[in-house]
């Protein structure tokens, strides 16, 4: 096997599906010649042509709406929203149309639509280009929400998403795309990583860290660091899928370690990890040696200036401190 980046894994997944299946196509802003704002689709226009690598005007609501309509009538569109912040522009299409069509029609329609979109900060793109809005979509019944943290999962989850038969909001992370630090062995053949299954990215026995996307990588760094420095043995659970949530794996881990720290890039208040913490408390109260805690984004928009942005988004230091606080508690 060869090591490839997260971005390459995503592109390869799309290329392979498109070679196999005429119904798969892409639509989005500047995905053709330009190859997408982050270059994920670079070169795909040349192979698949502009009918299937479909450049759109700047019309996010219609991009998703068109995705829905084509999905319901038999295609398998992959719509790209250039930044996940713009999901808000298409939120009616996502939450009121894509998510509800099947249910409100009594189970008589399928919406095999994937909306790919990069989330997260760390690029100095400020308040309207750096958000982590997964909590908004994960709350909507009818949607699935996937957030891969590494190349292997990225490829396998994207293929699963396209063939899931349900609308999937597939949130990528800008800091993962090209970073050579995160390259991985990725099988050349197409394969699936199941949606709805979390993954233990590092086994440990002292405390469970639950995270998704880029925060998994940051949690893993902290885990290695703390293991070397202090022998603390952290188990890192990568959610991979926020909805449906693999609560049983999380519970298993927490029952083993007795301690839970949720790590989340989004502002802490009202974020998705509240759900994880609440479910764990509801279902594993007696196994808990300390209350579950969350290390998450500050309660503000993502600021521009580097010093502020680094303060807003959970740093390794903050995660480390979160771990230490729980371990010293009780």
């Amino acid at each position: 096997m060869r090591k490839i980046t997260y971005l390459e894994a995503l592109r390869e997944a799309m290329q392979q599906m498109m070679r196999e299946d005429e119904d798969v196509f892409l639509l989005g802003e500047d995905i053709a010649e330009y190859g997408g704002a982050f270059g994920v689709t670079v070169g795909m226009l040349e192979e698949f042509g502009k009918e299937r690598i479909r450049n759109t005007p700047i019309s996010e609501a219609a991009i998703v709406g068109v995705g829905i309509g084509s999905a319901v009538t038999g295609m398998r569109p992959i719509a790209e929203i250039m930044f996940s912040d713009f999901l808000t522009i298409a939120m009616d299409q996502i939450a009121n149309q894509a998510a509800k069509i099947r249910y409100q029609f009594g189970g008589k329609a399928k919406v095999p639509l994937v909306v790919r979109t990069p989330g997260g900060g760390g690029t100095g793109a400020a308040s309207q280009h750096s958000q982590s809005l997964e909590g908004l979509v994960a709350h909507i019944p009818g949607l699935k929400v996937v957030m891969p943290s590494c190349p292997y999962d990225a490829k396998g989850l994207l293929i699963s998403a396209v063939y899931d038969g349900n609308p999937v909001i597939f949130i990528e992370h800008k800091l993962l795309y090209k970073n050579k630090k995160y390259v991985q062995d990725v099988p050349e053949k197409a394969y699936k990583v199941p949606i709805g299954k979390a993954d233990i990215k590092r086994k440990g026995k002292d405390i469970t860290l639950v995270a998704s996307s880029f925060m998994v990588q940051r949690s893993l760094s902290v885990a290695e660091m703390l293991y070397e420095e202090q022998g603390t043995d952290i188990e890192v659970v990568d959610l991979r899928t926020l909805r449906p949530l693999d609560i049983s794996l999380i519970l298993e881990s927490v029952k083993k370690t007795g301690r839970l720290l949720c790590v989340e890039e989004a502002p802490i208040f009202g974020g998705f990890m509240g759900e994880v913490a609440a479910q764990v408390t509801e279902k594993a109260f007696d196994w808990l040696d300390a209350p579950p805690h969350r290390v998450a984004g500050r309660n503000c928009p993502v600021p521009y200036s580097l010093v502020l942005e680094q303060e807003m988004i959970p740093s390794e230091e903050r995660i480390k401190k979160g771990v230490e606080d729980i371990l010293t508690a009780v």
Partner: protein
Amino acid sequence: MAKSKQLANKQKIDGYQIEDGFSQLEGKKKIEMLKKMYQIRYFEEQTEQFIIRGMIHGTCHLYTGQEASAVGAVYAIGGDDYITSTHRGHGHCISKGADLKRMMAELLGKKTGYCKGKGGSMHIADIESGNLGANGIVGGGLGIATGAGLTCKMKYANEKMVLCFFGDGAANQGIFHESVNMASIWGLPVIYFCENNIYGMSTPTDDAFNIDKISDRKLAYGIEGLTIDGNDVAQVYNTVAHFAQACRKGKGPVLIEAQTYRWKGHSKSDAQVYRSKKEVKEWMQKDPIKRYAQKLVKEDVMGEAEVSQLEEEVGNTIAEAVDFAKESAFPSPSEVEDDVYFVKQ
């Protein structure tokens, strides 16, 4: 259907030369169209009764008065073509061939309804017959229709096309703008069919638009478009047939504005303070069904007795639908979380 017709004598409609394919239809077809119009009318009258008697949980938007528009338009496309509908969707749905029993059952929230009782009036859909669904969001069908149009182009080389119903009110939603523009630049086979019934809820088009004809919005997208009499079933039929043919030839989308009027209040709870009884009465005098029936009688397609017989027949069908709906069971509470997701078998 429109495809196979010989070019007949043409009519000038809002600047376009439109062939009169309607007059060449078989009598049977013409009568069938009248029957559909009666079905819509009687279905809505029955629905109104249910509302009055408190049997509808939720709201309903009646299509009464607009029958020529749905029937004329849907009969001008093929059975395999798609439609998208609106909150005021019963007429579109019936025109596209929906089963009145299952529609009625849905309104009463029964398990035998089109949506197993999960959707109600605002969400009746029948994907199999090409009806991609009513929609509770004003403008909600526009993006979907455009996407279906893309499928038609990519998968069916424009042999299939899409008829997208929406109201005058919906034409001021952002999604209208984005959708029509996209269909235009991509040349998608979609007829954007705006039913202008002069009001969006209580708001007259005069207050919501600063233009005389909604169809003039075609100029913003570089497409064809025109305004027609939505209460003249033949004119609606001819216009839609004309542009359906263009769609199939890859000529791209069109914007048709059909002028019509809703006879009833906007929904269940409308005191109609925003319009006069006189105005309503005047429009009721232009009853599209009576007008069409008289035309068929005059043209000797059918006799007056046959019309009465047809009405009676439709009445019976509705009565059967009511019985079916009433006798059907409610869904079980245990089903509430079913159908949220597609699950592979």
